[in-house]
């Protein structure tokens, strides 16, 4: 890289274009040492992510006793194991759809910067940064039979008896909304603001009312971003863990798949079975993501701006 027989400009140009061929046509391509900067990063991901995954995959097929497929056969034959897939989907899919359905129109409404927008987005980022453990602890008190939420509803004579909102399905569902909605909203907002606002103006000048602008211009251009957001929000909801334990009924209606995996690993110390469950969890997420991305492929993709900049 620093050979001195190069002209300074040629040298700089080589660095710019990253072209391997420099210093005459016949010179062998020297190795680009800048690429060495990637080695620690790649090494880390391979050792701490790829290898454990591969190891887990192999482990899942080598149970302490029985044939290679014993874990998977067991998982899919015991309803308390395979049922967790549907328990989790029953929480993750409705909460994801609801969060996105709420976030899209609101983000559209707030696409134009306004006074206090930063304050609002800051307020929304708080539950995400606090994380699920704290939200679960807060909800336990807030939604409890003596909590402020039930008290307000009773004071307003909307209900006669406190609603049972903790230690069941609804507690987990609400915690997925409290952390999932801001996440979906902020992701979608960043996509919406990435759409050239002159497109909306152009549509308006051609007579499109706000809803028509949304339906014909913003929604189609937003589709790729929506698909991505759906995947991220769904994957997060599908791997729900602390709130399902703390705020749900981990033995029954909110026994999600991550609880099953955790129990296998840290209560029965059956790492082989735990790995198998983790692989199933990954596979379900992958299936949903691939389905969404395939659907996305049918939409327009390309720049979301209206011409030359």
């Amino acid at each position, binding site marked *: 890289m620093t050979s001195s027989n190069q002209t300074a400009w040629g040298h700089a140009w080589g660095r710019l274009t990253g072209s391997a061929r420099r210093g005459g046509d016949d010179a062998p391509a020297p190795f680009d040492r800048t690429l060495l900067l990637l080695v620690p990063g790649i090494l880390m991901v391979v050792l701490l992510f790829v290898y454990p995954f591969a190891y887990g995959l192999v482990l899942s097929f080598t149970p302490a006793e029985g044939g290679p497929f014993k874990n998977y056969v067991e998982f899919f034959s015991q309803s308390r194991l395979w049922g967790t897939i549907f328990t989790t989907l029953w929480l993750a899919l409705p909460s994801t759809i609801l969060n996105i359905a709420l976030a899209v129109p609101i983000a559209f409404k707030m696409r134009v910067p306004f006074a206090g927008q930063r304050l609002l987005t800051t307020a929304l980022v708080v539950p995400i940064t606090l994380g699920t453990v704290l939200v679960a602890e807060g909800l336990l008190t807030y939604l409890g039979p003596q909590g402020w939420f039930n008290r307000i509803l009773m004071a307003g004579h909307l209900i006669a008896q406190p609603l049972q909102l903790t230690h069941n399905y609804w507690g987990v569902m609400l915690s997925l909304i409290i952390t999932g909605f801001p996440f979906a909203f902020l992701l979608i907002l960043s996509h919406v603001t990435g759409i050239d606002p*002159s*497109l909306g103006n*152009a*549509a*308006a*000048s*051609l007579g*499109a009312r706000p809803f028509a602008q949304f339906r014909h211009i913003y929604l189609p251009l937003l589709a790729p971003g929506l698909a991505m957001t759906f995947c991220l929000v769904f994957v997060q909801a599908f791997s729900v863990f602390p709130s399902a334990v703390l705020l749900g009924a981990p033995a029954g209606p909110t026994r999600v798949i991550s609880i099953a995996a955790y129990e296998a690993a840290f209560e029965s110390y059956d790492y082989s079975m735990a790995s198998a469950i983790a692989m199933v969890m990954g596979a379900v997420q992958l299936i949903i993501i691939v389905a969404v991305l395939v659907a996305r492929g049918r939409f327009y993709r390309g720049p979301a701006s*209206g011409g030359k900049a």
Partner: protein
Amino acid sequence: MARHDPSKAAASGGNFEALHLDRITRRFHNMVALNELSLTVRRGEFIALLGPSGCGKSTALNCLAGLMPLSGGRIMLDDRRIDTLPPERRGFGMVFQNYALFPHMSVRKNIGFGLMMRNVPEKEAARRVNETLDLVQLQAHADKLPGQLSGGQQQRVAIARAIVVNPPLILMDEPLSNLDAKLRLEMRHEIRRIHHEVQRSTIYVTHDQDEALSLADRIVVMQDGVVQQIGTPEQLYNAPANLNVARFMGYRNVIAFDACSPLDGRRMQVHRNGVTLNATLQGDVAGHRCTVAIRPDDLRIGDPENDPEGANSLDGRVIEVEYCGRDWLVDVDTAIGVLHARIPQAATPGQRIRLVLPADRVLAYPQGRDAAMAVAAE
């Protein structure tokens, strides 16, 4: 393209007699971006809003389109007040600076969008889109996406999309600024052709005086949010109302004179460094001092026999020569300072030449505070 029955003006399409801008004003916080612009646009008229960037011309256009609320004033389409309407109810056509073509729709769908918003029946919409495609010569590209078109073609789509809905008024925001020089000339011609064919009132924002001069029926020159002059291209070019407009119209020689004395009518004499020139007064009152503006093209080379010194001619030394193809641009050092002249013959630096300044092309502006500042900035 559809010609119109003279029915009452409607929200879209149709005819109108005049669009009145009545002292429209736009303030951002404490800054006045547009100060009391009044203008009447007649049917079929092509108006150019001309000025440097930040002069308020784009603000004016955005206010007209309804993309920005007014801080004061009114916009009337005949006797109907429209400045309170949202953009989608004004029914104007707009061509955006970056074209703002919908990237996910074909050319045909882009053009048909406004018709769809107006519930125009499918068959009629298809017919009108086809007519417009013919008009802008894009029939071959009708089913492409905007991203597959060249800059000039995108420009045509943007224009077609704006005119297909028969708007009473078309707004164009620097539509040529993203094109290269050659294409810009071509599209300028194209815009003029389309305008002649459809006869729509048009308001065209630009910072390029050539564009404004060649396209517009009338030009509004703006600076710092304030209208400087409204007039036909000839009026602006030959008799700029003030030094700002003069500068914009290519009067490169701007010289302050110490004393002025009126002769008769608009004729007057100006004096500096012992030189006396005959000039033509612009503006109303002749003060004691004035500033003179001369276009390089209006200076000519005199010959010592026919143009004696003193009769509005000056001797000087050539200090810089620039070849421009058809003619030469020379800087000449004279008793009143360096003058820029465009001459039809070659010259060499150091050469002495005589310049003649025709009295009717030497424009004298009474020197107010603004003019003094303009000179200081030179």
